[in-house]
């Protein structure tokens, strides 16, 4: 074999091979198509679905108000839960054993209690004390000891007024969520390379600032996907508010129409469609959040880089 270096060799012929056949794919597609056709056929032909009735009733004022309550409850409970979770996670990673232990006990307690049980309990706190007052701890006992008839109370509220309806539901769901979020945030914080905190400390940044500016923003990348799960779980768990009870919530309103008119199936389907739509809405929000906190990890060009590149391109053509 000898190679003639004086002439450039012709480029090799483009390969035109017979592709591998995948009969399994066609069989699977056929099976799934038949099943889907059967499903659609059932939806169209079974009169129990009452599609017209469903469409007429699933957007009534009461249902729309219910959807609003559900969405607001989801957002508020998650917001408080996330803040509580960050606080608890930082407490659990604290060098102070008392603080770390307290966070552990909180997480242990609230993760163990079913949400519906917790909601029943919060709703009955009005029975524990009729009035809840805030002031100096053990003030009456101390005053008794000193022989005075007085107390040191700053403010208070009526237990039966607060621990009912929306507020009771929010307290129950947010306290429970805080425990789950604490574990998610802790995992996020621990996923950040310890060299990051070291570099921040070496620059003279305090522990708190290092956490806020350096560690948490990087932890967010790990925290957001499971938090999206939690948010969708929370959306669904607002149906548990019936335990409080909160009756303005979405599922209750749809079921109320169903049982009033004896059209149970159409309103149950309406419920499914509503939750699908709301969960999809939340997933869109998650997509944008994930994009925001993945800065510096993908290969996406930033605005300044795009501008700088354009400026270079323009400069080179002149």
């Amino acid at each position, binding site marked *: 074999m000898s190679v003639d270096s004086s002439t450039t060799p012709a480029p090799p012929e483009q390969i035109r091979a017979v592709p591998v056949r995948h009969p399994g794919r066609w069989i699977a597609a056929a099976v799934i198509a038949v099943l889907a056709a059967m499903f659609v056929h059932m939806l169209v032909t079974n009169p129990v679905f009452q599609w017209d009735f469903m469409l007429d009733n699933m957007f009534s004022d009461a249902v729309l108000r219910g959807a609003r309550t559900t969405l607001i409850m989801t957002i508020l409970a998650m917001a408080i839960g996330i803040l509580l979770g960050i606080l608890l996670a930082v407490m659990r990673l604290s060098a102070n054993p008392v603080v770390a232990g307290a966070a552990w006990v909180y997480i242990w307690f609230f993760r163990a209690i079913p949400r519906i049980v917790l909601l029943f309990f919060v709703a009955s706190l009005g029975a524990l004390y009729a009035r809840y007052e805030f002031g100096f701890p053990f003030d009456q006992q101390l005053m008794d000891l000193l022989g005075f008839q007085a107390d040191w109370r700053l403010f208070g509220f009526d237990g039966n007024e607060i621990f009912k309806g929306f507020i009771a539901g929010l307290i129950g769901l947010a306290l429970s969520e805080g425990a789950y979020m604490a574990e998610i945030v802790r995992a996020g914080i621990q996923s950040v*390379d310890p*060299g*990051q905190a*070291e*570099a*921040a*400390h*070496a*620059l*003279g*940044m*305090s*522990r708190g*600032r290092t956490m806020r*500016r*350096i560690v948490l*923003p*990087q932890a967010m990348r790990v925290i957001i996907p499971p938090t999206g799960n939690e948010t969708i779980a929370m959306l669904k768990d607002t149906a548990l508010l019936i335990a409080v009870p909160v009756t303005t919530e979405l599922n209750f309103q749809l079921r109320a129409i169903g049982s009033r008119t004896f059209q149970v199936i159409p309103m149950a389907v309406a419920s499914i469609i509503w939750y699908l739509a709301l969960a999809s809405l939340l997933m869109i929000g998650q997509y944008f959040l994930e994009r925001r*906190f993945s*800065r*510096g*990890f993908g*290969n996406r060009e*930033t605005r*300044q*880089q795009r501008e*700088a590149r354009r400026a270079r391109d323009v400069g080179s053509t002149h």
Partner: protein
Amino acid sequence: MVEARGVRKSFGHVEVLKGIDLSVAPREVMCIVGPSGSGKSTFLRCINHLERIDAGRLSVNGHLVGYREKGGRLHELHDAEVAAQRREIGMVFQRFNLFPHMTALENVVEAPVQVKGVSKAEARERGAALLERVGLADRMHNYPNQLSGGQQQRVAIARALAMEPMLMLFDEPTSALDPELVGEVLDVMRGLAADGMTMVVVTHEMGFAREVGDTLVFMDDGAVVEDGDPRQVLTDPQHERTRAFLSKVL
């Protein structure tokens, strides 16, 4: 500038520093070499209190690192006081440790704005000048993962310089770099030394130590075996262990 007297440090039962005596004068460049596990990086980390020492005295600019001596007893400093001490000391790490969620410029601007309270506009102006000085004027808005190792390490040097330290610590700054990128980082360090920065450099770059260093320290097994003028130590080592080490790396 740096005074170490009988500095000892143990991790569990392993004593990694067995009484280090060293002093670094202002504007001096000290290079520390030695086999891995000899304690050179640990000693460097003790200088800005990333590790606390167990015995001896270590001071920077006349102030004990991490402690205050009062009434014949040592008192631990608060986190805020330790942070204040570290502001005077820049540190460059083997693995760069740039903040990946910030651009090169944001990395450099972060500490002056957050810690020193410099205005954003002023910090950005000074940060841009520093990045230009390390040859990265056109990479200012890139994130660390869009930069080569050598570029990242130069950003890390600019980030440390942004705090206007009086002392710079380098912990094997070129060990994680591809061979062809080592030169650009050493060039920046050479420039710093020429400007009169006081530097303590843990390194395996004997050429840099010979050319730029004022003092070369050879450490082995947690102790200083030999120190002196780099040219002398490298060409005519007095100790058997130094000779054995140099014969392997030169």
